[in-house]
């Protein structure tokens, strides 16, 4: 039997106050198996009574070596790993990775594929925010919200299943376009969602936005200033709730985002409630983008016809020798990327989702680094929680909206 060692504070001496070392304050271990930590996050909390003095996050329980694994796969095959990062934003991860590959090898994307990408990532953003509001409200004891939001999320997952055969790990977006064209039922399914969802969103707001119990838990709790947020590298709705107008879809439009009419919700308070309002408004804005994208969806090819990177359609292989060679080369060796490095970023539901990609002239990436927004966002828990009650820590964790797969990679 392994002896269980007594845990001392020696290793963490530099992170806690002197009062913890003398035993005046209490160190409390929260997680990694704790329902309110939304996964396997461990928090070491220093408490004075019920007041949080210090909060030390401990991450890495879900580390799966995704970056190392991607280095051993060709550019096409490495893409399936990106789905597994942030499992609530799978389409967005695919988009970030594919855009990085396209930038590295200079590959074009046809207009229909661009519009489909925008449409699907915005649906995914809504689905991700639905999980956030469901679990956040569940933590705040509004249990029924969880059931309602999962009902709507199921509708979005059904649409993803319709186009790709998978509910979550779709890998539908591929370098140079999307996997294949959407089926005829797609438009009706999205129209159905567009029709039902605004009413549902009004119902959620009716349940929560002016609810005194929710206001008590959110208003003025977990404040973050603009300077703190920028210094800690926080992006996405948390940064926008502190009053910084930074949305990559507006500032650095990609996939034709400059042609869509939508607003970027901003608040200046920087507390839990501001983050709640920003995300709620973001769902409405995403809905606007989905509707515009569906209305303008142009006809045409959904994948680039650059045969050095994209395999030819099955129909060509039977008649064209060249197509057969391309097919064989692409599926055995993959395509080569230049010896260079790029950084490409998109706006995910949680913030800036960046990819650092370096090629070495061969068919496998030399180095892939996923800049995942949750990693930075969890780093500010201590700043937000200091001086609040331990019950408020639960509300703060919920309002950060992180995904452990995204942090640990």
């Amino acid at each position, binding site marked *: *039997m*392994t002896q269980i060692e007594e845990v001392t504070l020696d*290793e963490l001496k*530099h*992170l806690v106050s002197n009062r913890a070392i003398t035993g005046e304050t209490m160190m409390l271990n929260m997680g990694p198996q704790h329902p309110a930590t939304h996964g396997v996050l461990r928090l070491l909390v220093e408490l004075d009574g019920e007041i949080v003095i210090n909060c030390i996050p401990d*991450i*890495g329980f879900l*580390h799966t*070596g995704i*970056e*190392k*694994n991607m*280095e*051993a796969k060709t550019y096409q095959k490495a893409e399936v790993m990106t789905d597994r990062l942030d499992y609530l934003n799978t389409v967005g991860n695919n988009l970030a990775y594919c855009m990085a590959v396209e*930038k*590295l090898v*200079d590959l074009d994307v046809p207009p229909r594929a661009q519009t489909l990408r925008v449409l699907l990532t915005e649906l995914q953003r809504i689905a991700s925010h639905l999980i956030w509001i469901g679990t956040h409200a569940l933590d705040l004891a509004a249990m029924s919200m969880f059931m309602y939001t999962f009902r709507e999320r199921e509708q979005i997952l059904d649409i993803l299943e319709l186009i790709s055969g998978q509910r979550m790990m779709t890998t539908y977006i591929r370098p140079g376009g999307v996997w294949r064209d959407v089926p005829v039922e797609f438009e009706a399914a999205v129209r159905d969602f567009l029709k039902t969802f605004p009413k549902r969103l009004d119902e959620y707001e009716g349940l929560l936005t002016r609810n005194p119990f929710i206001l008590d838990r959110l208003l003025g709790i977990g404040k973050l200033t603009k300077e*703190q947020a*920028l*210094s*800690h*590298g*926080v*992006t996405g709705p948390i940064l926008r709730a502190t009053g*910084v107008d*930074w949305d990559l879809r507006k*500032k*650095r439009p990609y996939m034709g985002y400059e042609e869509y009419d939508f607003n970027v919700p901003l608040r200046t308070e920087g507390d839990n409630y501001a983050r709640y309002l920003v995300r709620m408004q973001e769902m409405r804005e995403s809905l606007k983008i989905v509707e515009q994208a569906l209305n303008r969806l142009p006809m045409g090819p959904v994948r680039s016809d650059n045969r050095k990177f994209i395999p030819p359609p099955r129909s060509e292989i039977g008649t064209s020798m060249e197509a057969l060679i391309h097919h064989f080369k692409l599926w055995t060796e993959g395509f080569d990327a230049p010896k*260079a*490095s*790029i*950084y490409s*970023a998109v706006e995910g539901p949680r913030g*800036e989702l*960046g990819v*650092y990609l*370096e090629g070495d002239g061969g068919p496998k990436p*030399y*180095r892939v*680094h996923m*800049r995942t927004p949750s*990693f*930075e966002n969890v*780093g500010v828990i201590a700043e937000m929680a200091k001086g609040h009650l331990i019950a408020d820590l639960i509300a703060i964790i919920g309002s950060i909206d992180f995904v452990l797969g995204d942090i*640990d*990679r």
Partner: protein
Amino acid sequence: MENKLEKIVQAMQAQFKLQVEEFRGEAHVFVGVTQIVDALTWLRDQQGFELLSAMTAVDYWPQAEPRFHVIYQLTSVANNLFLMVRVPVNGDQPEVPTVSGIYACANWREREIWDMFGIRFADHPDPRRILMPPDWEGHPLRKDYPLGYEEPQFTFNYEEIDLRKPYAEE
């Protein structure tokens, strides 16, 4: 390269004497290990790069000089600009000064690079591993670290594989 960015890079070149590369409109600036703290302080305070978007490293093993590049991806929210700063690091006892005093998020990112690449950050306030267990040996993202796997055990070879399985020491 955009005009605004080109001006900043030129000003930086005059101040720090460095090499610049350009690829697909992105500027990659090479800064020496000794200059990095000054360069990032100057970029944040004088040029408005207030956000350290990403920080990572690349291993060029078996090349020894420089073996690593530490990469700082900076964003200027005020001017809407991006800049990549690369620091070549020697393979023998790699060490870089910490920038966690300039950008708070560098604290965790530097712990991650120490964990994954074994690059030390001098004067780091909290130099522990972050993703791997504290008693882990080696640095997984180094190129001389093999991509490991686990042999699946079936009924017919369960015992055989069990004997050579690397269980934790008791």
